């Protein structure tokens, strides 16, 4: 009996899953009529199947599948690639620039840039004394130094009386 049980148990899952051959079915069914222990094993498999299957079936019955399809359709539409004409149009389209208020910060940025550029352009170049002309004339009574800026707009004449001690500009 024990040998037959182990032989049947090897086939029991195949039998339960309806994969057993006719010969195997006969053997299993014959044994199950006389062996409650093997029958219990079969019933525990049936019970497990019910436990797994029934809640899934119940959940599937309650579902509204057309609603899910609408979501799928919407998602596919939003993911569709545009044709080359559509993508060209979208590239050439500048209307978003006007729709959104991009122009306000754009104009402000442009004004700041202009101000910076103008400052750089009109900034006065400093003059360097080294580039100016200096002439020095010596005599017994007076010493004269003539200073003239490079662009000849400013001329300074220094008159020194007698010695260097009493020298004063005039």
């Amino acid at each position, binding site marked *: 009996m024990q040998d037959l049980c182990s032989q049947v*148990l090897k086939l029991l899952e195949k039998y339960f899953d309806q994969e057993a051959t006719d010969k195997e079915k006969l053997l299993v069914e014959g044994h199950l009529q006389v*062996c409650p*222990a093997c029958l*219990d094993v079969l019933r*525990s498999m049936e019970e497990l199947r019910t436990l*797994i299957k029934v809640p899934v079936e119940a959940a599937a019955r309650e*579902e509204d599948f057309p609603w899910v399809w609408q979501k*799928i359709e919407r998602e596919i539409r939003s993911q569709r690639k545009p044709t080359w004409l559509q993508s060209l149009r979208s590239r050439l389209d500048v209307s978003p620039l006007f729709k959104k208020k991009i122009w306000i910060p754009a104009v402000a940025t442009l004004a700041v840039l202009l101000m910076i550029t103008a400052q750089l352009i009109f900034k006065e170049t400093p003059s360097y004394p080294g580039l100016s002309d200096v002439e020095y004339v010596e005599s017994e009574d007076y010493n004269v130094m003539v200073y003239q800026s490079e662009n000849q707009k400013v001329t300074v004449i220094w008159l020194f009386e007698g010695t260097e001690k009493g020298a004063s500009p005039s």
Partner: protein
Amino acid sequence: MNQEETEMISRCQQGDQEALREIYDRYQKKVYRIVYGVVRQREEALDLVQEVFIKLFRSIKNFKGRSHFYTYLYRMVMNTAIDHTRKTGKHFISSLDEEGSFQPSDEVEKGPERILLHKEAEEKLKWAMEKLPAEQKAALIFREVEGLSYQEMAGAMGCSIGTVMSRLHYGRKRMQELLKDYMGAHGQGGDTSSAPKAQKSPKADEER
């Protein structure tokens, strides 16, 4: 695969959304049952159904027709569902403690006993399913929920029939072990491979 289905798939491969709708109508419940079997949560299952059909529409061009369409689809469904559970980790918030004992919430305690029992059964089952390796879980769902044959399962899981039988066997055994207190008189601790303890019956005695 019949002529109608071949034509429908061919149209879908060319980007016909109406063909996808036909496939959806034909397989929606099956897909839902499989993903629900894995995640056991309504909202997640519905999101996965959506994900599967969008994925199908994008990748159906890769289906060469060498196998049955449903095995191609079922494989995609199972992979999507199992990937989802891997990504979300142990997402299942259970009312069961580490040992699998049911800890009813206040809300359930106040309800009728029937709701409590139903809730407990669901929770216990979810808890046990979470403990199974992905392949065994897939085998159990394909067989117990969808009723696929070993051959069909092998096609959908990309393995041999022997591997299918082994996954089913160990999956059932593990589930029976985990649910032994719950499964009543028939729970044998999951050992379906060894000989059962001898139980005397009049007929058995006669045989000896």
